[in-house]
């Protein structure tokens, strides 16, 4: 996959830093609190590990809209946070490009003189789904069709890696807990192993 080892390392490290920063513990937090804290850490870790992409900026921007997340984000990202919070200038260029594209499309259609009903229907369906995808992918509203697909590709890869890494982290924590459970009986087992 396109996910590099460096991404995995960075993600896990960031996530654990996030856990420490938000002091996640089952004793002090309720269920919802813990869930949102973990999810926040995971999302920030994914964005940081991936680097600078349109969707990472959108993700962090979306996360920072909630007031309670801001202190956490500032803690984790440090000076990067200030840099990321600067408004994205590219969002102004995109509507202009879309107009040009649409105009050229109209010109081409007029030239070909095709009244393609099926085409129009297909285009509407695609447009509707594109709109939905724009909502799903963070920072998607200010992207044109092609970069939206590009960002979606990257985002899906990162999401999948995030889910996998969280899963493996989970199983490792589980395994370590089980080991600590059976630690009491460990000396005897060790002796028997050595004996054999």
């Amino acid at each position: 996959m396109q996910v590099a080892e460096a991404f995995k390392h960075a993600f896990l490290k960031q996530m654990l830093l996030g856990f420490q920063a938000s002091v996640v513990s089952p004793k002090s937090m309720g269920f919802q609190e813990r869930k949102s804290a973990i999810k926040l850490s995971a999302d920030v870790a994914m964005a940081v590990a991936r680097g600078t992409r349109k969707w990472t900026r959108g993700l962090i921007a979306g996360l920072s809209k909630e007031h309670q997340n801001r202190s956490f984000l500032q803690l984790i990202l440090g000076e990067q946070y200030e840099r990321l919070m600067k408004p994205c200038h590219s969002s102004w260029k995109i509507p202009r490009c879309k107009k040009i594209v649409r105009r050229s499309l109209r010109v081409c259609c007029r030239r070909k003189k095709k009244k393609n009903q099926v085409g129009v229907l297909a285009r509407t369906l695609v447009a509707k789904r594109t709109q939905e995808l724009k909502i799903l992918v963070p920072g998607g509203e200010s992207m044109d069709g092609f970069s939206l697909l590009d960002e979606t590709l990257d985002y899906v890869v990162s999401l999948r890696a995030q889910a996998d890494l969280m899963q493996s982290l989970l199983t490792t924590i589980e395994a370590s807990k089980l080991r600590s459970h059976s630690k009491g009986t460990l000396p005897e087992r060790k002796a028997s192993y050595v004996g054999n």
Partner: protein
Amino acid sequence: MQPSSKEMQGMAGGLAPSAVAAHIALQELQNDGGVDHDDFLDQMMSGLAPAWPMGLGGYDEASLLGSRLRQHQAAGGGSPPNGKSMLLQLNHHHYAHHASPQQQLLLQSMGQPPAGGGGDSGGFLPLPLSLGSGGSGHSGLLVDISREEVDAPFKASDSTKAEALYNNGFGENHQHFHHPQNHRGAPPAAAGKCQVPAAASGSPSTGGGAVPPRPRVRARRGQATDPHSIAERLRRERIAERMKALQELVPNSNKTDKASMLDEIIDYVKFLQLQVKVLSMSRLGGAAAVAPLVADMSSKAGAGRGEADGAAANDGLTAAEHQVAKLLEEDMGSAMQYLQGKGLCLMPISLASAISSATCHPRSPIPGGLSQLNRRTAPSPHAAGDAPSSPSMSALTVPSTNGGGDADISRPSRCKD
């Protein structure tokens, strides 16, 4: 490095021979020369890479190599004497096509005679010719190659081999030569660049029907030559290429038209987001559990993993050993692939645990209901006939929110392995 290679050999199973061969080959290569390692390997990989019809944006070269070697072995091309000579032969095979001075240098610096690459080519996979313009005159950096090849319309999409790589590459201890950001930076630059030469080369190619200078723009007779339609066509082709790449990512996708592909992509994104949400629900992020892991992370888990393996071996629970060793490296990918292919194996259990922990006290174990869930969902992956480790992993997510009942619930499910 030693424990990691041992584990890799122990666990990678069927992938091991070629993967290990590739790994050993790479290590040998590294040990070989006084050449600067990164540059040498870069050149090596760049020499091998253009011969493959893949987009290399963000790819891991060693995993590519591993997957190619594996396919080569699977195609029955005969087992190479060692990985190194196979690499040499591959390189020479490529050399026969491209005759770049860099590959000559490579062969000379490796200090071995070219082993008759032409004659042996029958034993290889028919490595398709790369884009002719893409191969020659390259510097050793992978970034250049990705810039050249990323927009080729007739090339298989970026993620054509992604699934194969995902399954194979996660099973190997691969080395990384480039940060993925380099590759991500390249395609947008290429996207910006290719408009200009396409517009210029569009009219002569459509006018004369001659071979276009860049294979990206196809010469089509009878099409309008005005720049608008060419730009439109180019844009459509790029969008189609991205759609194909996304289609490869989404598992079990067989739709080809745009609307349904977008539908599947949307569903898949929603599924992944929900999966992350559920995982964050069922996780126990206790500081006590996290602290030893922090130590592991900081030391790159080299020493930590070795110690954990020792402790786990005493336990005799090989599944735990597997999981700990897999933490940073590999193979959650293939297990998750299977789970995602089913789509539902992971979710119901975690959702059930989340619901149970939300409605009941978080600490009270519910062995009866949860173990029933285990037994009910565990046979289904078996029925599909795949990795036996997946039931244990999906079952293990259940006790995560419960304190005491872990040992009881998870052990019977592990015995199934």
